[in-house]
């Protein structure tokens, strides 16, 4: 899996991420973010996570971008240009600590692609071996999502429902006379 196209996609992902952050025009930023999502979806398809890639393409690149664009249409497009760019030392310092922790911990993480690593063996091998027999579902991701960890999925659907109620509560004022 450690192919050339992985490096290429990772580079593209980082470049688009930087672009989305440093473009002044927020429209361009959001559209660059959509491109970023698509590159991520490609990356994940390449890494074998087809369901995640599909969801990222549909939800990340589609729905999130749509929400961003609607918000931009209703507000303003342009980020304020500030003369003096202040570097926040506190923020940079805490980022340095975080980055150090990430690098410090990374040494003992399993190597990418190692089939003998613990996450690939313990619980997940049960899912791979048994899901067809126990749930009659060839797509193991669906079996785990909807059955073995179906309760998480109920929680996840509830998260979206909570967001729906939340947006209703925050933004709709004039119409709530359903008595």
């Amino acid at each position, binding site marked *: 899996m450690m192919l050339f196209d992985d490096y290429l996609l990772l580079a593209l992902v980082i470049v688009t991420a930087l672009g989305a952050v440093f473009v002044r025009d927020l429209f361009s930023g959001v559209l660059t973010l959509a491109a970023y999502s698509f590159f991520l979806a490609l990356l994940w398809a390449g890494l074998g996570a087809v369901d995640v890639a599909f969801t990222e393409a549909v939800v990340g690149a589609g729905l999130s971008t749509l929400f961003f664009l609607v918000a931009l249409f209703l507000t303003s497009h342009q980020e304020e240009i500030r003369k003096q760019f202040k570097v926040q030392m506190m923020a940079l310092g805490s980022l340095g600590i975080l980055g150090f*922790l*990430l690098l*410090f*911990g*990374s*040494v*003992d*993480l*399993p190597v990418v692609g190692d089939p003998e*690593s*613990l*996450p*690939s*063996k*313990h*619980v*997940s091998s*049960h*899912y791979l071996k048994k899901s067809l027999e126990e749930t009659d579902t060839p797509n193991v991701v669906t079996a785990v999502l909807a*059955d*073995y*960890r*179906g*309760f*998480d999925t109920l*929680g*996840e659907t*509830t*998260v979206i*429902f*909570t*967001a729906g*109620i*939340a947006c*209703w*509560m*925050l933004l709709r*004022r004039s119409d*709530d*006379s*359903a*008595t």
Partner: protein
Amino acid sequence: MTSSLPGFLFAIPFFAAVVIPVVGFTNQKFCRPIALGALVSLSIVSVIGLSEVVSHGPLSHEFGGWAPPIGIEWVVDGLSGLLMVAISIVSLITLVHAGPLVEKELPGRVIPFYSLSLLLVAALGGMVLTGDLFNLFVFLEIGSLASYVLVGVAGGRSLHSAFRYLILGTIGASLYLLGVGYFYAETGTLNMADLAQRLPEVIDSRAVLTGLLFIVLGLAIKMGLFPLHGWLPDAYTYAPNSCTPLLTSVVTKVPLYAFVRIAFWVFGMTTVSTQIPILVVLGWVGAVAAIVGAYLAIWQESFKRMLAYSSVSSMGLFMLGFSLGTETGFAGGLFYVLADTLMKATLFGVAGAAFYQCGASTVTDLVRLRENMPWVSSALLISALSMVGIPPTAGFFGKWHLVVGALEAEKYFAVAAILVSSMLTALYFFRMFQRVWAETLPLVDPHVLETPFPIKMSLGVLTFGLIALGLGSDLVMGLIFESAIPKGF
């Protein structure tokens, strides 16, 4: 022992929360009875659950019928049962209290208010009862989304503070998720009990250390532990009065519970005090938080902001208690969590009632309570005595056990921190009462409303609860010692 009871602990508030908007669509009047009915039955079921735990040991529920490392399980044991009882009862009382306020403050948004409050209760229950790290993250996010919106719904400053809360809260949740990822990478499991068995083999791994640090950091943001409490004062000050009692009494306690569960049950006492000594650090952080929070509270003019800083101080005391490393300290910390849940619900309830009736929001304004609102001012008096730690209120016994625990552990800085923070607390409440009772009344507004019955009743019940918890502290401490203490002390 497997049981279907934890399943009902999830199903009751969840179904009520989803049914409320569907039913409220036809008639808005149904919302409040459904919400209160659900919380009453939730309280009854959780009390039954706790009594079952005391008599028969922990109850577990395997969702989907899959045994733990494969599926997700919920566990009611002494600690989670106790917290579940506290959450369900306190949220019931605070929603009773919110009834008159919400119709005045949030007209036209009654349906989403009740729905979100119940989703919040369901999520807090889920975080308390779950035995799975990722499931905890999902419920953390449901609860967080609900509380961001309940903070921000009043618009203006409240909305801005809610946005900051959202940004910091999302960083906290992401750090937590990242920590879970590190644990998963090292052990291949997400179940807490399974993780507790597998962690000792890889405890020297740097990834486990980093993962634990990320989880503690993420949860510390969520619980508003000093110095990561940046979102807390504004959010508590500007949140609508109908939401603050629920938000301030339970929402920050549950991430604290998650930390306690991970540190003492998944890692175990010996690991977090010797191999990865985070307890030492957190003890000092707690001591500083207790003093600094109380000190900052003295200088606040707004009553709710003063209470917000006193929450920062209380969070420091809990952390101090849990990190003492003795049974008494742990039990005292837990008892103080329960007491503080009641105290914060009472105090913010008083703040809401005062603003509702006579527009009082600053400490000086509280003078108007004196003549017109005997219920509200006596609730204020008793909860303030409890905050300071005067017997026979619950706050006194909480602090007493904390001090005893600190003396047993021979950690004199902790004793000093508890005493100093109590003195500072006494100072700001004394200053408040001096203004309320010693100053002359500016002008009595004859048009002050009669305190609505739900507010009177809920404040009365909370105040009674504070004294009852104090008088029955031996019983509760016995329960804690018997079934809610982790192994390894």
